[in-house]
């Protein structure tokens, strides 16, 4: 159920995300989704890649500070109210969304959202009970 996401620290200056991205490109790591969270001074680059183990090892070997975290890929109807249903399913559960972003592939009339929850296991339970489909890593990254 859970997807491995790689996060990278980057200073908020021109050119600072190009070197890790170039490194992954050179080594043939395919980036499937990417989200950059920024502050005035620094940012966090969050990546979902085809081979996270290879990517994490590569980045670490080249001196980048990378962290692997577990996120969930949630399938939602690509129409009004799709996200609202997911949020409703979590109300009252104590599960908090740390951050979220859209996965750039749409499957038919379904969109995929990536969520980082404070408690992924509780989130899985609640979402599945509400009949919401979670996309497995093999399926997402194939």
């Amino acid at each position, binding site marked *: 159920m859970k997807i491995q*996401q790689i*996060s990278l*620290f*980057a*200073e908020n200056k021109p050119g*600072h995300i190009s070197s890790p991205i170039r490194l992954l490109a050179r080594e043939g790591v395919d980036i499937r989704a990417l989200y950059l*969270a920024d*502050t005035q*001074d*620094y940012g*966090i680059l*969050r990546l979902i890649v085809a081979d996270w183990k290879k990517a994490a090892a590569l980045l670490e070997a080249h*001196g*980048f*500070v*990378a*962290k692997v*975290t577990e996120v969930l890929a949630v399938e939602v109807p690509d129409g009004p109210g799709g996200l609202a249903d997911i949020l409703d399913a979590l109300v009252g559960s104590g599960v908090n969304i*740390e*951050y979220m972003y859209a996965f750039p592939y749409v499957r038919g009339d379904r969109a995929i959202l990536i969520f*980082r929850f404070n408690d992924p296991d509780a989130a899985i339970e609640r979402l599945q009970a509400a009949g919401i489909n979670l996309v497995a890593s093999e399926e997402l990254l194939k």
Partner: protein
Amino acid sequence: MMNPTLETCVTNCPPASVPDYLPADALRALQLRRLQAVVTRAWSQVLPFRARMDECGLTPEGIRSLEDIAKLPFTQKSDLRDNYPFGLFASPMKEIVRLHASSGTTGKPIVVAYTKQDIDVWTSVLGRALAGCGLHRGDIIQVAYGYGLFTGGLGAHYGAEGLGATVVPASGGHADRQIMLMKDFGVTAMCCTPTYFLHLIDVAAEMGVDMKELPIRAGVFGAEPWTDAMRAHIEKMSGIEAFDIYGLSEIIGPGVGCECRRHQGLHIFEDHFYPEVVDPETGATLPEGELGELVLTTLSKQAMPMIRYRTHDITRLLPGRCACGRTLRRIDRIGRRSDDMLIIRGVNVFPSQVETALLTVDGALPHFQIILTRSQGLDQMEVQVEVTPNMFNDKIGALQELHGKLQHALDRVLGIRVKVTLVEAHTIERSEGKAKRVIDRRTA
């Protein structure tokens, strides 16, 4: 027999300034008497000093001439830290009327103490310093040093009051209010750091106040090194005469030495502070005129005598007598130090303090660099901290919390506001594996 110049100087000087013009042989005799007394006092009252004397096989009777001072052991800033807070006091607490503190090399500050007589001495030397800058009763002196544990504010305050001048105790900060007071009160002299005065010049201009039109005619600037180029700039922009004053808390505070109107070096108030210049490596005494580290001995201090204190300030004793008539010897203006101490807006900062502060935060490693810049006449200190895997988190909130903790730890240890910047790992320049700790981009 006094020479005629000396005689004129003495008759024209304020009574408190008479020691400035003591004939050299009388001054040397006074210094020797006081040196013997202060060494005896420290030896009998301060156990760590006595232990150091024992190691050298010395007793106070071994001091028979001023040259014998070279036999005495040095005192280092680390001695003050190691005996924190009261271990070097030579007076019981009931005799001590004031405590001040300044930053040490690591987390703990160093503490200095004053008896009533010490405060009187401090007041008198500062009064003599201000008199040497041409100030007197009737002058209105604004003190914009911080009032508090820092010796600058209260030191200048007492000195100016002792001189009989009118004191405006503005303390630091609130530049627009400082300008308003200068203008409305008709302030004639300012005591603050030179960089703060530069800032005031800019703020005055922004407020539409031309400092050259104000009654202010003198600035007595200290607590940080500054250059002749900066003096020229200040004088040109404000129309005042700028004086360099020197001092350090360990010895007494501001007022150890000061320029006179000749601006040819700083007169040391030698009847209370005995200056030597030594080779910073070997500790050997250097002859007059040679550059080395200034070493000071307090000749009259009661609460906390300092014997041969290593200031780490690099200067030289200027040969010859000043044209002003004072017999007090002079040191050159201080441009650099023999250790890694930084002076930021008048506050002493050691890179080791930054390291100590960072290490109090979970997961932080001492991979940091200090960047110094000057903006609007004020020193700015930025501490860049490398984000290590232990510190890193994929959530912005967690990184902001980390940033806040680092900021808080630095504020608490350094006592001044610094900018903390998180930078990528391995980006701080290292030479031979050793990180370059300080990049100083301040220019005069």
